[in-house]
């Protein structure tokens, strides 16, 4: 064996381990660690694996509820009951750092990782979403814009490559563009799977004497210590970290997925865990820790892609498409038969022990020996210092801007524009269950095996979070629930992905804490427990931290196919109603950002009681069969919501709108304010009075806005009148991203 480097203070520091943490390691081991053990501790105690800086915050989330079958943190993903013996497992995870360095593989392996988390639970993955953030892609060909486009194109292609090949439809999500993400894009991927209650698989190394199998792809040198890489700031030198980015093989993962589900159904599995971050290290010590046992493995038996790999490299590799399976003794042959059928590598690499140790051997030599539970669970916990950021710059008086030009400009802004350039590249229809195509308030999917209709959405207005993290996080939850309500669904549960800057900077940590508390409070209000998720810190480039982005993935259920509702107007002559008030809050609005070039003001306030009433009202109107379309007002306010309802259907339909009743609000405020708790619905003309009365009866102020039809979206208010050709609005909205991406330079 080659000589291992000596443990020096420099080597310890290079592993991101502080002197205090090193002391802790020595006291756990009762001696100094060797090189391999140091590497193992460095990845397990990285933020990515240990949540050492965020754990006290994460404990604030509500994690229980009547439908929760597996709680957050217990296993690889939470599991929620959906009735009739069926359940869903879902989770969101980030691959921000790898995607910044190598967008295609970074995003692709992110998809691969989240899919493994789901089938590890025994669930068949049925759909994916993603939530993406990039720097601006429009403007005059600066190097920064060109790089943002390269990252955006690469990430989308990587997601498409992996998701399309493995045959799991990518049915929705969100994409935003903002300067703060320049050099540090966010790539959050979500996957949901379905299973029977009795099929829930556990990640424990149970049964002393049970054999431990390694299945899936061979271990290579790719992705070495990726978890540690993800737990520091991105710098100019980060490009040298390219070996820390893994390479994905969706074909291998498809085979692995089918083989594992077949094996789980055979009853031969005692425990199962995927090898994601920290690979073989994490899967062995976590399975042992969960079961209160020990695991001993022999690295000579691990299938390897390259010769002469050291124990350090094998243990820290993040090669993709690998699983660790604890097999019930006596049933080894079932594993061999299934993995041979699928032409996948497998090997019996170890055994479950009763001594609580994670023991790594090379033949007869022990190369690492660490108490598994202490390694997995006893990472230091830090209560970081928080200091509030200064209050946002007040808005002041806004200069006049012509609404005739402002609306198309907002619709063409890539954050608001149609994402068809993106979702056309994703197979969003495989598995033959996509009832609502991408581009409406929420994705709707028929899970055939369970005969259940699910709705899912991901939301986060990071602009609000930058100006007021607590309120912004609350609104992210409220908007997700509102999107589900508009699609006819009742929300069930939440997964979140917390994307923030370096937690050692007190103002970044303050943002994290404010957002977590906002999310936790709102999840309690909406009765949606958090079933798991991911924390991604150190999202900063040399220019600073990204806007705080606590992405919320929410899943709901729709009781009948008749309740599936989309945002587009359905025909001419329907009445258009506004559920909620006209509002007037301009702080943090996209109008102020896009038209006036400022990220300023206090973002809108959320009133839970009002929000819940408006959501309940739209859901009950939908269930009564009154609603033809429903769309919430979010970025760009009422005018953008109306325009999107006009132009997002198979055929563009105009609308005649009269806002005279709302008095003399200035143009910008009247049309583009982003006050919360507002939904635009259309109903058949003859049902308008009934819908209005029912909504009012539920305590929701409701207003007749006008009617659908014609070639224009025409909005009047007293003497003021703004007509837009819907074909022009459609062109601005539909082509904007494609044009930016095809532009030269």
């Amino acid at each position: 064996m080659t000589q291992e480097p000596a443990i020096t203070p420099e080597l310890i520091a290079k592993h991101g381990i502080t002197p205090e943490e090193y002391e802790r390691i020595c006291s756990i081991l009762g001696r100094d660690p060797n090189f391999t053990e140091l590497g193992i501790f460095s990845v397990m105690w990285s933020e990515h694996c240990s949540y050492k800086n965020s754990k006290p915050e994460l404990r604030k989330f509500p994690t229980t509820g009547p439908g929760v079958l597996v709680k957050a943190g217990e296993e690889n993903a939470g599991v929620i009951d959906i009735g009739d013996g069926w359940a869903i497992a879902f989770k969101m995870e980030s691959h921000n750092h790898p995607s910044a360095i190598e967008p295609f593989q970074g995003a692709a392996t992110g998809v691969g990782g989240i899919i493994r988390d789901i089938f590890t639970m025994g669930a068949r993955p049925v759909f994916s979403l993603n939530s993406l953030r990039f720097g601006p892609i429009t403007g005059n060909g600066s190097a920064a814009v060109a790089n943002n486009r390269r990252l955006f194109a690469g990430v989308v292609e990587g997601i498409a490559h992996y998701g399309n090949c493995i045959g799991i439809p990518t049915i929705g999500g969100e994409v935003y563009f903002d300067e703060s993400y320049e050099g540090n894009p966010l790539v959050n991927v979500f996957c949901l799977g379905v299973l029977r209650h009795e099929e829930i698989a556990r990640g424990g190394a149970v049964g002393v004497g049970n054999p431990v199998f390694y299945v899936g792809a061979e271990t290579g040198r790719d992705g070495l210590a990726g978890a540690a890489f993800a737990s520091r700031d991105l710098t100019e030198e980060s490009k040298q970290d390219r070996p820390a980015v893994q390479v994905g093989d969706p074909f291998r993962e498809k085979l692995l997925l089918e083989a594992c589900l077949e094996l789980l159904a055979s009853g031969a599995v005692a425990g199962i865990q995927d090898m994601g971050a920290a690979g073989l290290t994490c899967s062995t010590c976590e399975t042992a820790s969960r079961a209160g046992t020990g695991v001993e493995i022999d690295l000579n038996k691990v299938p390897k892609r390259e010769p002469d790999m050291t124990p350090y490299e094998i243990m820290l590799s993040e090669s993709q498409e690998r699983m660790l399976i604890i097999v019930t003794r006596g049933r080894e042959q079932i594993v061999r038969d299934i993995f041979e059928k699928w032409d996948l590598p497998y090997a019996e690499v170890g055994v479950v022990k009763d001594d609580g140790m994670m023991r790594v051997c090379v033949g007869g030599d022990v190369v690492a020996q660490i108490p598994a539970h202490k390694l997995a669970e006893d990472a230091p916990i830090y209560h970081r210092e928080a200091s509030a950021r200064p209050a946002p710059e007040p808005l002041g008086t806004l200069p006049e801007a012509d609404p005739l030009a402002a609306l198309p400009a907002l619709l063409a802004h890539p954050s608001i524009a149609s994402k068809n350039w993106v979702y056309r590249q994703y197979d969003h229809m495989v598995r033959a269950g996509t009832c609502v195509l991408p581009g409406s308030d929420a994705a709707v999917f028929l899970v055939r095996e369970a005969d259940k209709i699910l709705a899912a959405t991901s939301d986060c207005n990071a602009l609000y979070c930058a100006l007021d993290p607590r309120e912004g996080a609350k609104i992210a939850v409220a908007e997700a629930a509102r999107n589900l309500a508009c699609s006819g669904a009742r929300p069930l549960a939440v997964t979140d992905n917390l994307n923030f800057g370096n937690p050692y900077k007190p103002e970044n940590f303050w943002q994290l804490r404010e957002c977590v508390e906002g999310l936790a409070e709102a999840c309690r209000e909406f009765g949606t427990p958090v079933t798991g998720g991911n924390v991604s810190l150190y999202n900063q480039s040399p220019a600073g931290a990204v806007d705080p982005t606590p992405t919320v993935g929410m899943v709901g259920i729709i009781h009948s196919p008749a309740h599936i509702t989309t945002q587009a107007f359905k025909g001419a002559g329907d009445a258009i109603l506004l559920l909620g008030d006209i509002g007037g809050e301009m702080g943090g609005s996209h109008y102020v950002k896009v038209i006036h070039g400022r990220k300023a003001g206090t973002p809108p306030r959320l009133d839970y009681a009002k929000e819940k009433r408006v959501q309940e009202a739209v859901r009950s109107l939908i269930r009564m069969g009154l609603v033809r379309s429903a769309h919430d007002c979010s970025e760009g306010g009422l005018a953008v919501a109306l325009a999107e309802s006009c132009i997002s259907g198979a055929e563009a339909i105009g609308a005649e709108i009269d806002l005279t009743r709302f008095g003399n609000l200035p143009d910008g405020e009247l049309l583009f304010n982003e006050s919360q708790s507002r939904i635009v619905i259309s109903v058949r003309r003859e049902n308008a009075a009934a819908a209005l009365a029912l909504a009012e009866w539920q305590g929701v102020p409701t207003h007749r806005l006008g009617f659908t039809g014609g070639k224009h979206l025409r909005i009047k208010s007293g003497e003021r009148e703004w007509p837009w050709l819907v074909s022009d609005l459609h062109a601005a909205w539909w082509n904007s991203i494609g044009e930016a991406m095809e532009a030269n330079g």
Partner: protein
Amino acid sequence: MKAAVIRFPGSNCDQDCYHVLKNGFGLDTEYVWHKEGSVEQFDMIVLPGGFSYGDYLRCGAIARYSPVMRSVAAEAERGKLVLGICNGFQILCEARLLPGALIRNRSLHFICEHVHTRLENMETAFSHAEVTKSGGKLLTARTGLLLHMPIAHGEGNYTADAETLREINRNKQVVLRYADDHGAITGGANPNGSAENIAGITNRAGNVFGLMPHPERACDPLLGSEDGKLIFQSVIESAKKAAK
């Protein structure tokens, strides 16, 4: 009467096809693993979409060497009905059971969207039937009928040499062409650059059919179209007739 859905490693529309045949049409349907030696006992054979062998070489280029393909070719030779969808179409071309080839989309991007295709020949075993849509409306095959189905592929650009194109036109082997919503065969309606907007063809004998659109994703009003039923109804009727 029995249908086979072949599963190659990397097939991913196998479950969708199985569902439509088994639960939609009530057909006795079985999965056949690609390592199986024979499909002789089946009356119709479906090669589903997906990424067989990851499509890492050329789409369908490795799958054609799967053990089961020898039997598929033999059964096709004997006149049995074979339907290849998307990757299944690519495999049939690679196996020389259909003429021509499918290359990368003109845009070089994967494309997933609903398209219109025009029925060019209503007299094949795969395109002659009449089906009832939910709500009782009839969908009856006729030349010029527009079928609304999704496509989802990176390599669906049909190409063949001039002589082959002449021949498949002469023999009425072209069953579907991409069209606009008025039924016109235009460049703008061609999503991937296919020669002459070709979306689906049969072999000379008319018992092997390959198409890029996914009929199995267009058999349920909840998914936005039931037009795919026409393809399945046709092939099932033809197979039943042949089985008698």
